[in-house]
């Protein structure tokens, strides 16, 4: 029997751990990663020629980041690693992969999606003004490129990244104009026992708050964003405090976000079944207890399967790799899988506490003002979206997209999709889980026509 071709998409904590486990067992996986260097978003490496230390780059996570990078580099020829590879379609048992301007068709027998996550946002007035970033984007600018997004920065939203990124900016010498959490203080207090029970990870999270306080940076609870102020660039941030009084804080940049959302577009194209996850308030790909999707031979791991952070991602990466080993006639993986299950169980309580401490404020999406841009790719305002719903009566979000252009642009609704679904659900008077999920369409990210001309790429 010919050896099976196993492809891993993504070289973050989940994809790396999976590749390590497969390599240990004599399988040489193809590892495709869109980024030019391995590590994923969380352990993203600095560009060539940058010389900051691990301690400076990754703080508490320095040892783990270094261990991950070292372990991946040590795999060497035991894996077929292809960085800078955009997988833009799955059809049958084939991937279309664009790399260095050349397209290639790759056949697979088993496929592991370790595709990670992206920032989740809710549009608010002024969010397309230059100077407004996502929390993740602000963090990447600092960690990867050693740039700050501004000199005096407002951070707001509802996300574990909120205190962390604010603190990283403060540590880098940037003036933090304020940290504004949309979650009420009582929700944080209610989540506290779960966080405390979560061991060192939970304590680390709490320490961010303490260190912000030590630096004299105020952490506001229960705020409502009103607008990023400014015409050609951000000059301030207006918000309502927990008591409903409006304030304005001067700043030259804003970073905001509401947690992260799984990047599952490829799994969608592969035909995997989805379910709405109430805890994280988003759609996710259904998997069994070991990461198998509903489609034979397709597996998921990491934040692309369920938002749970880097530690869990590595565990689920190993779990999926062991499922692949078991499914390809390898040795029994029962003992190893039980060990992983026990470790994951320890994370579950903390994860639930974090989900509760930083819930998705769906009401902010439902109340987006009519004149606020909802879909920035297609420049559609929330009021135009509501008008299209009223005029043509869509009963789910793909219809609403067809009628309004919301989600039809180059991001395919990755950015505005969650908010659009909330607005539609409000107009329909139904829970958001019944408003549906924007279907993915190939290519999952834009592809250059130039790569497909006669002189280049695939001869097919």
């Amino acid at each position, binding site marked *: 029997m010919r050896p099976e071709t196993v492809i891993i998409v993504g070289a973050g904590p989940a994809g790396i751990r999976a590749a390590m486990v497969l390599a240990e067992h004599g399988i040489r996986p193809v590892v495709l990663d869109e980024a030019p260097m391995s590590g994923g978003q969380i352990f993203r490496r600095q560009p060539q020629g940058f010389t900051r230390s691990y301690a400076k780059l990754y703080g508490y996570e320095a040892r783990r980041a270094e261990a991950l990078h070292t372990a991946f580099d040590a795999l060497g020829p035991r894996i077929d690693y292809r960085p800078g590879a955009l997988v833009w*379609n799955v059809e049958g048992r084939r991937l279309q992969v664009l790399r260095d301007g050349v397209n290639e068709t790759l056949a697979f027998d088993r496929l592991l999606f370790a595709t990670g996550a992206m920032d989740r946002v809710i549009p608010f007035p002024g969010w397309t003004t230059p100077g407004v970033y996502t929390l993740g984007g602000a963090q990447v600018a600092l960690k990867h490129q050693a740039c700050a997004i501004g000199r005096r920065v407002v951070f707001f939203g509802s996300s574990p990244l909120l205190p962390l990124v604010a603190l990283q900016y403060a540590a880098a010498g940037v003036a933090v104009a304020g940290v504004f959490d949309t979650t009420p203080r009582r929700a944080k207090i209610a989540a506290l026992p779960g966080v405390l029970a979560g061991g060192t990870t939970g304590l680390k999270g709490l320490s961010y708050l303490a260190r912000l306080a030590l630096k004299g940076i105020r952490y506001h609870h229960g705020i409502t964003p009103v607008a990023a102020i400014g015409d050609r660039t951000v000059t301030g941030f207006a918000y309502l405090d927990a008591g409903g009084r409006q304030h304005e804080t001067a700043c030259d940049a804003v970073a905001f976000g509401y947690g992260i959302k799984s990047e599952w577009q490829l799994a969608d194209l592969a035909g995997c079944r989805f379910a709405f996850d109430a805890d994280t308030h988003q759609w996710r790909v259904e998997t069994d207890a070991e990461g198998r999707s509903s489609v034979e031979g397709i597996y998921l791991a990491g934040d692309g399967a369920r938002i749970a952070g880097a530690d869990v991602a590595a565990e689920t990466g190993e779990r999926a790799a062991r499922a692949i080993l078991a499914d390809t006639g390898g040795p029994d993986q029962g003992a190893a899988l039980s060990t992983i299950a026990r470790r994951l169980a320890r994370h579950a309580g903390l994860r639930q506490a974090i989900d509760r401490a930083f819930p998705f404020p769906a009401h902010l999406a439902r109340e987006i003002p009519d004149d606020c841009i909802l879909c920035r790719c297609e420049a559609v305002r929330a009021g135009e979206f509501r008008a299209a719903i009223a005029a043509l009566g869509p009963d789910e979000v793909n219809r609403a997209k067809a009628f309004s252009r919301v989600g039809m642009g180059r991001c395919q609704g990755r950015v505005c999709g969650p908010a659009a679904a909330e607005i539609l659900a409000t107009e329909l008077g139904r829970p958001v889980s019944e408003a549906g999920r924007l279907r993915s369409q190939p290519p999952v990210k834009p592809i250059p026509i130039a790569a497909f*001309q006669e002189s280049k790429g695939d001869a097919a």
Partner: protein
Amino acid sequence: MTGRLSLDVAIIGGGTAGCAAALHLARRGLSVALFERRTVGSQASGVNFGGVREQGRDFAELPLSRRSRRIWDELPALIGSDGEFMATGHLKLARDEDQMAVLEAFATGAADYGLAVERITGNRLRADYPWLGPKVIGATLCRSDGQANPRIVAPGFGQAARRAGAQVFEHEAVRHATRDAGGFRIETEAGRQVTAATLINVAGAWGATVAGWFGDAVPIAPRSPSMQVTEPLPYRVKVNVGVVGGDVYARQTPRGNVIFGGGQGWNDMATITSRAGETEVMAAMRRLTGILPWAGGAHVIRTWSGIEGFTPDDLPVLGSSVTTPGLLHAFGFSGHGFQLGPAVGEVLAELVLTGRSETPLAPFSIERFGGVLAASA
């Protein structure tokens, strides 16, 4: 959802033609219900290129397309929306002398139907359309052709039909229909029992299945257009562009996106899914730059498809059943029904109300496919 309905007219299929028929019949005071297995305009009517084109049609279709073209100008009054229709013109390109002869033959014949088509060659071609690739040697332009947004046209007719009093049931497929002395008896997947004096089959790629229930034989092949769209580019191509043979076609929306297609993707009728198909997508990108080289610097941001019904001669079935009084068919528009839809709705309403149409329908008779199923089986 169970219940009984007693109707003057039942319509199977929620494309533009079915919705337009429902609109006209409801306005004339008839009780009408339309049943659509998914949502209005979700297949051929909604996923097509958006070309509102008469140029290049079989001459047999021109009386119908001429009639439809007049309705496109009147959409705001008819359905309360213009469907984003713009008379941009359609430029059909020749890449060799034989193709140019095809274009000129059409231009000459179309004049008999009152359709103006201009020949454009030589320096004028390069002066008027400087973005054309060097392989293009000539073209014909039909200025009255144009483009519209297929995603909103059929739903616009559907909403107008509702406002006129028609019942439009979405996500409700018809399981079966029969006819007896009391008229048509229709049962939907939701368990609804419907009786109707007249039944209109506008079920697109599924039209042959419905026709088959009554012994009308039509060979229909389901096909899926391979469609793509680029990111917005500077607005340059202000006419629709097609080629003789139709292996690539393109238009640019005023906001800048280039919509193009060519070839067939794939579909699965069991699950009612369709895709543009990666092989066709990649091939169409090459063909696009053959006629519009400047698009070679753009990115494709999305591809899509749907399911259309094709007949062996690429002409639709439009008219009465051979076997069953009171049964009307309009399907099999073979990938070029978007422009015709509004007129087909009018014709169907005429046939229901008067038994005849002012538009010649003989070329579209279902009889050309050899009559009844029992005889052909």
